[in-house]
Structures are given as structure tokens and as C-alpha cells.
């Protein structure tokens, strides 16, 4: 193997990429707009939640409760009857229906501890869960404000002081932005290397290359370093300019450490791109294969929802994927400012997975060339 050949073959890939407007647009989009969108468009938990009220009390306190539900969290509540309530919930028109019983105000003032019923359509998880809490606190707030006229406030004996670390405001945009960078690294490195190989095959240039004094290892490494470099540079740009600059997300840890990990991750994913391209054979098949591979890789790696809530078997299987380690590492370094002493196991895992994928893909690639 000669380093000069690897260098030349890589430069050839870079020149080829420069002339491929679709890929260039995809790279620019993935590392700028897509990150901006992921950061700003993280859905708020509650947005125009559909609520209706069955007001059987028709008292000052009940109308006070009804008027407390306002956009943007809730739609303006519709007043319905009990019969309508079931029908509307069955057809999915309402997520919440609050049923205020007759004589609620009277019982409340008389200390008879009346019960308000809140019906929640629990097939809508996101709204059901957080929305339930909102409704509860709104109702309590209104009731106690109403009662304030009747009695003084009492303090609770023990205060709970909650502080969120690493992201005090729990700004979802921070998480969305950095997570999107991680996903883009994986997606683009696989697509770029895979597409580069398939393009060569479709144009018949791969055969041409083999008639020259170059080895399959050199051809593969040429693609790995060049496409990896492109994604690495795009990642740096995106973290510094888009994430830190444009979106003003503070990054806690060392960018250098993150980049070192990104290099390992890119080594693994570019090899994976080569592997998938040898399996697929043609661009459309590659596209279909991507859907089946990329989605599990992204969704189950812990980047979207916490790993610990997944079934144990999936957590174990996903340990074989480079993404899982990269996501853990990226979150530790970028959000919590962890150093090498904390994240070295992930570095080790990435290095091992990358080497295995390289050896495996190279064998596949050699076979593919015959």
C-alpha cells in the first residue's frame, strides 16, 4: 500500500464531489438549515391542546376555571354536555374533557372536598402526560386564587429546590441542534462514501482503476479519508458557526476532544458506507437499504430518546453500533464538559468497532471487485 496512491485517489474523490451539485447542496443543507430547523422547531410539549369542559356547576369558580385555558397551550375550551363528551372523545376531537360536577363551588366552600373529573385521551401520549399536569396546576391555581378571598396562604413545611444542570432553562433547542449535528455526521458519511463507490461502478471506472497499479485497500482508503474529511470540516463549521454562533448554544467541553471522536466515528461510518454500497449494487437499492439501516441507527442510538428506557436487548444490540458510543460521548463532552478521563471507554469502543468494520468492509469490497 502506498500513501501517495491513497492521497491521489482521495483528491480525485474530492474533485468529483466538487462537481456534484446535489451532494454539495445536501452537505450544506444538513449542516446548516437542517440544524437550525431541528433546533428551533423542536415541538413544544403542549400546543393548542384540544380541551372541552362539561360545566354542570355554572358558578363563578367554574367559569373562572374555564377562562383560564388559553392559547397557545390550549384551544379556547368548548362547552359540551356529558353525552357529547363521549362521542367527541371517541372520534378524537378532544384530548381533554374537564367535568365540573354540580354544586362544586358550594361543596368546595363547605369543605366537602368535591371531585373534578379530568378525562384524558391517553392514546395521545405527549399531550396526555404533560397536558394532564398543566390542567391540574391551572385548576388548582384558579381554585386557590378564588379561595384567597376566603383565607390566607399557608406555607409548605419543606421546599424543593430544583436545578437543572448543563442546560438551566431546559432549552430543547440546544439538544436538538447538537443531536442533529451527530445525525448529520452519520448520514452524510454513509451516503457520500456509498454513493461515490456506486457511481464509480455505474460509470465503469472502478474496473479501469483496477487495471492500474493500485490495490483495493488503497481505493477504499482513498474514499474513506476524503469523504471523512469533508464531513469533519462540515462538522467543525457547523458546530462553531451554526451551533455556537447563529443559534448561540453554549458548548461546555473541549471541541478538540469531540473532533477526535468524530474522526473515529467517521472512520467507522465511512467503512459502513462502503459495505452497504457493495451489498446494494445500484443507487436505488442503496437508497432503500439506507432507509432500513439509517433509521434504526439514529433512533435507537439514544440520540432521540434515552437509551435506558429501551428494552435491555435493544440496548445490548445497539452497543455494536458506532452511533451509540458516539452519541454518549458527544453528549458527555458537548453538554456536560466531560474530559478524556470520563469518555475513554467510548473512544476505545469506537476504535474497536471502526477497525472491525474496516476489515469486514475491505473483505467485502475485494469480493465485490471480482
Amino acid at each position: 500500500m502506498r500513501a501517495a496512491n491513497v492521497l491521489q485517489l482521495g483528491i480525485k474523490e474530492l474533485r468529483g464531489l466538487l462537481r456534484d451539485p446535489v451532494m454539495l447542496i445536501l452537505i450544506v443543507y444538513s449542516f446548516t438549515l437542517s440544524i437550525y430547523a431541528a433546533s428551533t422547531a423542536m415541538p413544544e410539549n403542549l400546543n393548542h391542546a384540544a380541551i372541552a369542559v362539561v360545566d354542570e356547576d355554572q358558578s363563578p369558580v367554574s367559569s373562572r376555571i374555564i377562562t383560564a385555558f388559553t392559547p397557545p397551550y390550549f384551544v379556547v375550551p368548548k362547552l359540551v354536555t356529558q353525552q357529547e363528551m363521549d362521542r367527541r372523545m371517541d372520534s378524537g376531537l378532544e384530548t381533554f374533557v374537564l367535568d365540573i360536577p354540580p354544586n362544586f363551588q358550594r361543596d368546595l366552600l363547605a369543605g366537602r372536598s368535591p371531585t373534578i373529573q379530568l378525562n384524558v385521551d391517553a392514546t395521545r401520549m405527549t399531550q396526555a402526560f404533560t397536558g394532564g399536569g398543566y390542567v391540574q396546576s391551572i385548576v388548582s391555581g384558579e381554585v386557590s386564587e378564588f379561595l384567597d378571598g376566603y383565607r390566607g396562604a399557608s406555607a409548605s413545611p419543606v421546599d424543593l429546590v430544583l436545578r437543572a444542570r448543563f442546560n438551566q432553562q431546559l432549552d430543547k433547542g440546544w439538544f436538538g441542534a447538537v443531536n442533529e449535528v451527530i445525525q448529520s455526521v452519520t448520514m452524510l458519511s454513509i451516503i457520500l462514501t456509498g454513493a461515490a463507490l456506486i457511481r464509480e461502478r455505474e460509470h465503469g471506472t472502478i474496473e479501469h482503476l483496477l487495471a492500474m497499479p493500485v490495490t483495493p485497500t488503497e481505493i477504499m482508503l482513498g474514499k474513506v479519508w476524503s469523504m471523512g474529511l469533508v464531513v469533519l470540516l462540515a462538522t467543525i463549521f457547523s458546530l462553531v458557526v451554526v451551533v455556537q454562533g447563529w443559534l448561540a448554544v453554549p458548548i461546555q467541553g473541549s471541541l478538540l476532544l469531540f473532533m477526535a471522536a468524530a474522526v473515529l466515528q467517521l472512520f467507522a461510518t465511512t467503512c459502513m458506507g462502503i459495505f452497504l454500497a457493495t451489498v446494494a449494487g445500484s443507487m436505488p437499492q442503496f437508497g432503500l437499504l439506507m432507509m432500513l439501516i439509517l433509521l434504526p441507527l439514529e433512533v435507537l442510538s439514544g440520540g432521540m430518546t434515552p437509551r435506558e428506557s429501551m428494552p435491555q436487548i435493544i440496548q445490548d444490540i445497539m452497543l455494536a453500533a458506532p452511533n451509540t458510543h458516539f452519541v454518549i460521548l458527544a453528549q458527555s463532552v458537548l453538554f456536560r464538559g466531560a474530559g478524556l478521563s470520563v469518555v475513554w471507554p467510548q473512544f476505545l469502543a469506537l476504535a474497536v468497532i471502526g477497525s472491525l468494520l474496516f476489515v469486514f468492509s475491505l473483505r467485502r469490497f475485494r469480493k465485490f471487485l471480482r
Partner: protein
Amino acid sequence: MTLAPQHAALAAPVASLQGVSHRHGKTLALDGVRLDIPSGCMVGVIGPDGVGKSTLLSLLSGVQVVQSGRIRVLGGDIAERGHRDMVCPRIAYMPQGLGKNLYPTLSVTENVDFFARLFGQDREERSERISALLQRTGLSPFPDRPAGKLSGGMKQKLGLCCALVHDPDLLILDEPTTGVDPLSRRQFWELIEDIRRERAGMSVIVATAYMEEAERFDWLVAMDGGKILATGTPAELRARTGTDNLDSAFIALLPEDKRKGHTDLEIPPPADNQGTDDEVAIEAEHLTMRFGDFKAVDDVSFRIRRGEIFGFLGSNGCGKTTTMKMLTGLLAATEGTASLFGSPVDPKDIDVRRRIGYMSQAFSLYSELTVRQNLDLHARLFRMAPDRIDQRIEEMLHRFGLADVVHSLPDALPLGIRQRLSLAVAMIHAPDILILDEPTSGVDPVARDSFWQILADLSRKDRVTIFVSTHFMNEAQLCDRISLMHAGKVLVSDTPAAIVERRGADNLEAAFIAYLEDAMGAASNRPAEQIAADPAPAPQEAPVLRRSAFDLRRMFAYTQRETLELRRDPIRATLAILGSVILMFVIGYGINLDVDNLTFAVLDRDDTAFSHDYALQIAGSRYFIEKPPIRDYQDLDRRMRSGELSLAIEIPPGFGRDVERGRGSAQIAAWIDGAMPTRAETVQGYVQGIHAAWLQEKARALYGESASRGSFQLAIRYRYNPGVESLVAMVPAVIPLLLMMIPAMLAALSVVREKELGSIINFYATPVSRLEFLLGKQIPYVALAMINFGMLVAFAVMVFRVPLTGSFLTLALAALIYVISATGLGLLISSFIRSQIAAIFATALITLIPAVQYSGMIDPVSSLQGAGAVIGQIYPTSYFVTISRGTFSKGLAFGDLIGSFIPLLCAVPVLLGLGTLFLKKQAS
């Protein structure tokens, strides 16, 4: 060919063109063509690649939209749809490319059967015609072989069967014999002649690059640069130009500036017998290559002297390319040896390759690199000394006439110049041996002659040994020696003259055919005999025009074909059958909203019964797992940074005392890992809840049960999903999403794939209507989607344990209507898209975004606003989500959900109607 030319000239034209121009993007393919094509005879359109022959033929067949000018075919304007519909069953069109309109995974019989169905023939008629046609073409021994595995000649015969299955009056063949061996070529023309004898009125229009073939046609159209150079019988053309063959006649007809620089090709005889010339450059001994059972190359031996031009002549797929790959060391021979200058070729020895220049079939340089960059890359890969590279590149640019195009991209260059670039690249490292695989196919005669002039110079002046393969006889004629190759075997090797002489044949082609017949023995004669022996098939009646607006048979032809193709494509079939289950598994577990197994630890500075009790309260909840206690702030910091702890609780000193006294001064501090905000919010909620519960319990323990004025309860009823489990909520919503995305994508791909592979031409050229085409393609995907539906429901109930409380039949009925819409949407998308990869991404975007955002998966449609609300109200997923949740979780039946069925049903005709409207029945 049997008809006299005079006769041809007298007949009314079968087609006439007036001022026809056609553009493909920027290039002008036809430039104001005016032409009358005589009927009832064999018309040849001659000229090199890219002069507009194919465009002309596709316009005549009605496959391509007429851009400007008027074209009358079979007595009407082909631009009019009514006329096209009427004459379509009378025209047969066979596009360029070996087996271009065939389906490679379908068998011989299945292919012909498909076409017969498209022309509305019933079962009996089909089987009769198919067996007759296969018999005549000699394909009857291989009815079950996939079309993709046939040799080039057989593919073309099969293509002809498909074209002739409906007895056309006008047969249009675009380069039907390019790349086919001479024997098959002769058989092909004999077949056509034979059929013309039976159907005297049939007109045949053929494009060809072989001038020898054109000699035998009745009437010729010579084309160049989108213009007609001349028309007339072959004899007339020769007489007009004063030449003795059509090749020279064609060159003579070219405009002045194109002929410029063309001199008659002179290759001096090899400077023989000068001592060192006996040096053997290439030697092959008993080379054999097996791929499984198939012998691609069978015991091939030859010796090539230094400086010789050695030709390999044979059809596509006869083993030429494989032999070349063994010589270059690209492939290791199964048996035998190849040696270059006396040393054996070892595929592992990379240095051998530096002595060889290899130019593979077609153009295979980097189209994204400029001419200079291509040369530079290859120079470096061949390890030339960096200081010599620039000089060598200049030399090559000059020698191969590329100096004007140094910074151009190859795609912008004419074919002839591209071939010169390929040769320059192959020569950059000054190899001793050049191996060229069909270097000049498709190049015009002038460029081809200049290419061969360069080869001659290289051979005679630089003493480069040249090994070249070709399927053109006139090129083979230029070689010093040739080998005739067929089916992996070398039939004979000698000088072209000696071969002709030995067989006593008129020319090289006749000699080759004679050798081929010997090699194939009696087998090859059989079809010819049968043609003679068979009585003419049933007397021809005037073709009955079976043209109905909607024909079930034509529709099912597409259904059946699509099903067969899908079954034979493993990646697409996997996606179709398992894709949705895999994705449901991923989404079901991945997008999990239950947050549990959270880690926490306590920094307990109080260490009293109260503080222990508080920690126990948290550890006792099902959401949290307790980790060893925190020692100090450093410990807390380190463990939170590493992500080990999601929650840290600090209990201050004196906590127990304060609680006991009921003084409101005790403060518990809780740190939450905010790196993942959604999880942090959930943790926050849990902690607050646990804290409140603990306080209440303590209060009750301390002060006893005494409800005070103003207390009330809020009872939350989680309906339909009492456990508030993520899966129960997600799964009924994910099923509609998957049943939208995957069926739509497969349906879109099925059409776009045909566009990309070229078989869409069959839709343009046959009487199948747009609705028949779409419905026919849709049916298998609807069936597949229903299988998917069944699997998803089974998976949901059995693996995810999501109970199906309502009516399954209602759900299944809704699913059926829904997947018809989904596939319909895919077909609609396909009418705008050309490439498969774009179809994959576009369908994913178009289906995913509305299905996820606006269809009530997360926010109910009723709480959407603006454009989102409009999309949500018309998108079918919204209604299927309601039905799916209704039947899965809410225990509803048909009667409760009728309101959602109506809009779902409405979507079907709308989507199919739009799909039919936008689908084009012609290429643009």
C-alpha cells in the same frame, strides 16, 4: 429486399415528415427534417451514434412527443392522440440497446406473453402465437430462461418476437443487430425477410451502424448532425458519390468541414522479420475462465508478437472482455497461463499493470474530472516521476489532438474525442502493450479512421503491441492478425486475408459465419429449416382493432408482470414485506415516551430517619434506581458529568429537625441532568410529584386526617390507555404512517424504475391506457400492503401486546381503502419524477411530513391552524389514524367511525384521477 426499388418509389409513403426539429435539452437532435418514407419496403437509416436516428424512429413510432413540424404515419397525424390510439396496434417499435424493452428477470415466454396480453389476445391465441414465434426464432428450447441471461443475439430475437406478436403493419427497429454476432445477425435478417414475404404490405424501418447490412436494404436515409444527407437506394448513393462501398459513400456525403483531415486509412505492413520482432509480447496458453458452471473462456491460446495489431472479433458476451481481463491480471484464470514478455501474469503482482495500457469498454474515465485532471491522476497512479508528468501530459495532449479541450469535462466532448482521451490516458505511462476493448463502437467513420491511424502509428513507429476487440468486420480487416471468437472459444486465428481465403468466402463476414456454423453444428441450422418447412401460419386477416376504453386483460398484464418482477428482486421484496415491520419495531421501541430506569443518588448531610425516609420514597418509585450515595460536591460533579446520574438529591443538615418542628425553612436541593431536556422535564415532574406525596403523608402522620375548607380533588381518568403506556399510544398511530410511506414509495418506484431502465417505452408503444397501466401496477402493491397490514397488526397484538379492542373487520376495511390511496399517491408522485433515488427521497418527504405533523399523530387535527389544518383535513392519514385508534384502543366499530370512512373513500378517486391525468403516454 425482395421488392424492386422502383416499386418502393411508387408506393404511397408510409410516413412523411415536414420541417421536423427536435431538441433534447440543449442539443438539437433533428434539424428541420423533411422526408417521405416509402411504404411496403425495407428502409434503412444510416449514420454514426448521436446523429438523430433514434429520435427520428421514436417520433415515427409515436413514442416521443412531436416538438415541431408535422409527421404523418399510416395516413394520419401522429401528433394527434386519436390517430395514435388508432394506429398504435398496427405499429411495433423495438428500441435501441440489447433487450432494452425486455424484462431481464422475466423468462422468454413470460416476456412475449406480457406483450401479447397488452394487445388484448386471449389465452388460446397467445399460446399459439408464442409457440409459433419462439419456434421460428429458434428460442423454443429455452422458454424458461430469464431474458437477462440470454446472449445478445437471442435477446434481439426475443425482442423481435415481442414486436411481432400482434402482426404490425409498420415495424420500427432501432439498431437491432448492434453487438450481435454475425450468424445471429444473418438469422435475424432472414427472419425479417421471411415475415415480410408473408405479410407483403408490412413496412420496416431500421436504423443501423453496420454499412454492410445497409447494402441489402431497399432504400436508405443517410443522416448526420440531425439532418438528412441523402436518400435513395444503396446503388444510387454509391453512384452519386462515385464510391464502391457505403462506408466511403457516407464519408463522401458528409459536409466539407467534417471530412476535412480525413485521408484514406493506410496501415503499412508490419516490418517483418527484423530479428527482434520475433519477440513475443503476449502469450496465452489454454486460458480458461469459469464462473460457476459457466465457461466464459474455454481453452484459449494465442501468441502476439511485439508491435503487432491483434484483433479479437466476436459478439457481445462471447468472452472477449473476460480474456482481456485475464491478460491484464484483473481476473485470475481458472486454468492456463497468460504471460507478457515471457513472464507470467500474476493478478497479485501490481507491477505487471504498469507495462499495460488498458481501455475498457465504452467510455470509463471520470466524467467529473477535466481532460487534464484525468491525465494527471493516471500519471500519478502509474507512479511517474512528478517532474516528468507535466511534460508527458503536454506530449499526450498534442499527439492525440486534445490541446483545445484541456479544461473541458469529458461529457461535453464528442464521442470520437472522448475515445481519443481514453487512449491518451491508457498511453500516459508509455506502456509496451495496449489492450483496447471495443474502442470505437458508436464512433463515426471519420473519427474511427483517425483513431485507427493513431493505432497504426503506435504500432509501427513506437512498436507498441496492440490487442483490440471489436464486433465490426471492417475494423477487424485492419488488424495484422485476428482471432474469431464465439461462446468462449477461439474458432480460428490468422491474418484476415488468410481466413477469407481458407474458407473460400467472399469476405470476412461470410468466413466468420461459416466458422460459426461449423462450431454450432446442426443446432444452428434448425430454426432456418423450420422456417422453410413450416407452412405459413393461419392466413392473415385484416387486423381486428380491439380497442376498448378499459381492458381488464391489459391491466392484469401489468399486474402479473409487476408481481413476477417484485418476487425476483430481493432488496425491494424485503423492503416490501419486512420493511414496515422492521420500522415499526424501531419506532415502537425507539420513540418511547415512558421515561423510567432513571438513576439517582443522594448526598445526605442530615442522616436522620427523616432523610432516609425521603430517599426511600424516591427509590421506591418505579421510575428511579438508586446508586451509591454521593460523598461530596466533587463526587456529585464528576458523576453527573459522566452521565451516570440523572438526578442528585442533597438533603441539608437539620432537615429532620425542621420537618418535625414543622418550620418552613428546610430546603431540599435536586440537580437534574439537563442535557436531554425532555427527559429532564419528566424527571422534574416525577420529583415534584414524589415530594408532594411525601409531604402529604408526613402531614397526615403528624396532624392526622382533617380535611380543611377549600380542599378538592382532581380525578384524572386516563381513557383508552389506562396504564398510560407509550406503546399503546404509539402503535395504532404508527401503523397508518408505515402503511402510507412504504406502499407509496414502492408504487412510485415501480413506475420510475421503468422510466430509468427504459421499459416504460412499452407503455408508450402499446395500446395500454393510462388507467390500465396505473391500476395494473397498483394491484400487486395494494395486495402487498394488505399483507403488511396483517403483519403489523399481528406484531402489535402479539409482540407489543397492544390490545385490539374494537372491530378488526372495520380496521381491515379502512386499511384496504387507505392503502389504495397510499399507492395512488405514490403513482401520482411518480408522474413528476424521473430517477429512482429522487423517488425514494421525494416520497419519504411527501408522505412523512403530513403523516407525522398534520394527521393527528401528535396534535389532533382539531388543534391545528392555518395550512397545517387544511392539509390535516384532506390527508387520508388523518382519518385512518382516527379509525386505527378507534378500533385499537377505543373499542369502536364501523357504525361509530362512518364519519371517517367517507373522506377516506373520497381520496381514492381523486388520487387515481390525478395520477391518470398527469401520467404521460409519450416521452417528452
